[in-house]
């Protein structure tokens, strides 16, 4: 193909030139809607934000370069930054594994040859459509200490439910539990992954007398590990950026127990208008996310199984 086109261009150079030019113009024209956005809304702002993180600008003051001052302040004299990072990390460490276990269990149950699959799938999926502020409202009501449905149901099991969102110890776990209700989307993804596992593998294992548990552990899990990997990475990136739940359900409280990094960033940037310092906080969170993602990616070679690759 390449050969014929080049031999053609040797004989009809001018026309081919025109055609390449046309193709190039068309390519750049069609990609323009992305390129403009990339330059003006992603790359440009990133450079600007990196620059701002070395200044003390607050929208009105004159802009002074403070070098690494913001970074020193974040890491040494502003305990709320590290505190909020710890909260976000704890939230991610709690919510992502819980979501993975619940969604994977549901998907495995739904992957059985049973009747009513569509019905169950819909019932588990619909809650995942409830997100943002609506989710926060509903769970504030459900988690209400005295009148909430959750503590009422727990009392039937002889459990005295905690004060959830107003209890310093339970507020953050309560937010993590709230996200558990929305695992329907993840369940759909795992269900699709499970359905993609070739049935021959299970048949072969059955002939060999493998137990159901062994089949799950040695066949199912490795075969869907790429999907798990992707979901865990996306889940952690998302959890570290959680904002809406803490802003609307707890306002970061009680006693900053649910002060997530993005909530702190919002307060510094958009309530105190310290744009320089807020940019530095944004970059710190970005580096934490990047480092964690790279860490998981490195670990993936030990537990993610790609078909057709030597492991």
């Amino acid at each position, binding site marked *: 193909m390449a050969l014929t086109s080049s031999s053609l261009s040797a004989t009809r150079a001018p026309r081919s030139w025109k055609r390449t030019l046309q193709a190039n113009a068309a390519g750049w024209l069609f*990609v323009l809607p992305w390129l403009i956005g990339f330059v003006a809304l992603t790359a440009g702002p990133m450079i600007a934000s990196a620059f701002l993180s070395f200044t003390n600008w607050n929208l009105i003051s004159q802009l002074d370069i403070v070098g690494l001052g913001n970074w020193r302040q974040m890491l040494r004299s502003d305990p709320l930054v590290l505190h909020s990072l710890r909260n976000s990390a704890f939230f991610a460490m709690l919510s992502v594994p819980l979501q993975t276990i619940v969604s994977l269990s549901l998907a495995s149950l739904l992957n059985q040859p049973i009747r009513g699959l569509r019905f169950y799938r819909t019932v588990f999926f619909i809650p995942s459509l409830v997100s*943002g502020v*609506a989710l926060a409202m509903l*769970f504030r009501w459900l988690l209400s200490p005295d009148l909430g449905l959750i503590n*009422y149901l727990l009392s039937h099991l002889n459990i005295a439910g905690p004060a959830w969102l107003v209890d310093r110890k339970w507020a953050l776990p309560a937010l993590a539990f709230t996200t558990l209700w929305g695992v329907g989307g993840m369940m759909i993804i795992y269900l699709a992954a499970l359905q993609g596992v070739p049935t021959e593998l299970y048949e072969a294992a059955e002939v060999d007398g493998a137990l159901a548990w062994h089949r799950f552990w040695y066949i199912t899990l490795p075969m869907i590990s790429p999907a798990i990997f992707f979901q865990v990475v996306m889940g952690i990136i998302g959890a570290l*950026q959680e904002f809406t739940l803490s*802003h609307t359900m707890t306002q970061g409280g009680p006693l900053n127990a649910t002060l997530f990094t993005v909530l702190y960033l919002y307060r510094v940037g958009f309530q105190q208008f310290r744009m320089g310092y807020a940019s530095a906080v*944004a970059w710190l969170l970005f580096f934490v996310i990047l480092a964690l993602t790279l860490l998981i990616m490195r670990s993936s070679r030990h537990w993610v199984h790609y078909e057709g690759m030597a492991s």
Partner: protein
Amino acid sequence: MTTEISSLKIPKPEVRRGWRASRARRQQVFRLLTHLILLAGGLVFALPLFWQLSTSLKPVTQVYNYPPEWIPQPFTWSNYPESMKIVPFGLFFRNTTVIAFFGILGQVLSCSMAGFAFARLRWWGRDVLFALMLSTMMLPYHVTMIPQFILFRHFGWVNTLLPLIVPRLFAGAFFTFLMRQFFSTIPRDLDDAAKVDGASIFRIYWQIILPMSKPTLATVAIFTFNSVWNEYLPALIYLNTTEKFTVSLGLAAFQARASLGGLRWELMMAATTIVLSPVLIAFVFLQKYFIQGIVITGVKG
């Protein structure tokens, strides 16, 4: 395979038949157990929405009864109009619909164009730009949030809907990637045939590629709609007077206002139901595209 083997062994040994029977029984029990777990789980998952609906229809005197009562007594439909009176939800719906309309149009057009360029055209710099785009796919919003705010503020766009619409007119990396992947699966013979017939590149995009990609376009449209409807942080940053609020912001404001004279949970749940209804109705009619979109993208909406 099993039938072949059993037909070879004509007199089946007793033991084996017993084993088979117990195996069938075991499978039955297993299936029953699966149903039981799924039903119990389904109940737990359905309960919050049921409780929301039930609370939203209760008279104010019944909401605070303990132990809680499941069924509203009497059904108080007036909670809905009353909750609409506290904050102007009609206005919030209109604002959010405006953002969603232009946002969906912008995303579907721009992402399909860029996806087309990456999948079907050959041009200098394509692979470099594609790699650049991929690298921005997981970029957190908060890194660009502050300079974007400064930029839009400079344009005088604070407290207008523009900062929520304009970024959506430029192709997002994720949907562009999705489009590009889908377009790559369409046979190239179609383009070649069209080219032979003298079709321009724009016509190939508009009359061949786009019509064949309706399910993917629908996925992008639905996901954009959902993201607009639930968007909170950007709305919070840019919008500061009630008449510009989106539904998410309105609901949060409602919470603040309704809790002034003690929390009116029945009104809050009515408002939450009102805000949720478009998403739930969209799901009922477009269920296929919701599920398909999640499966293709591997992202939960």
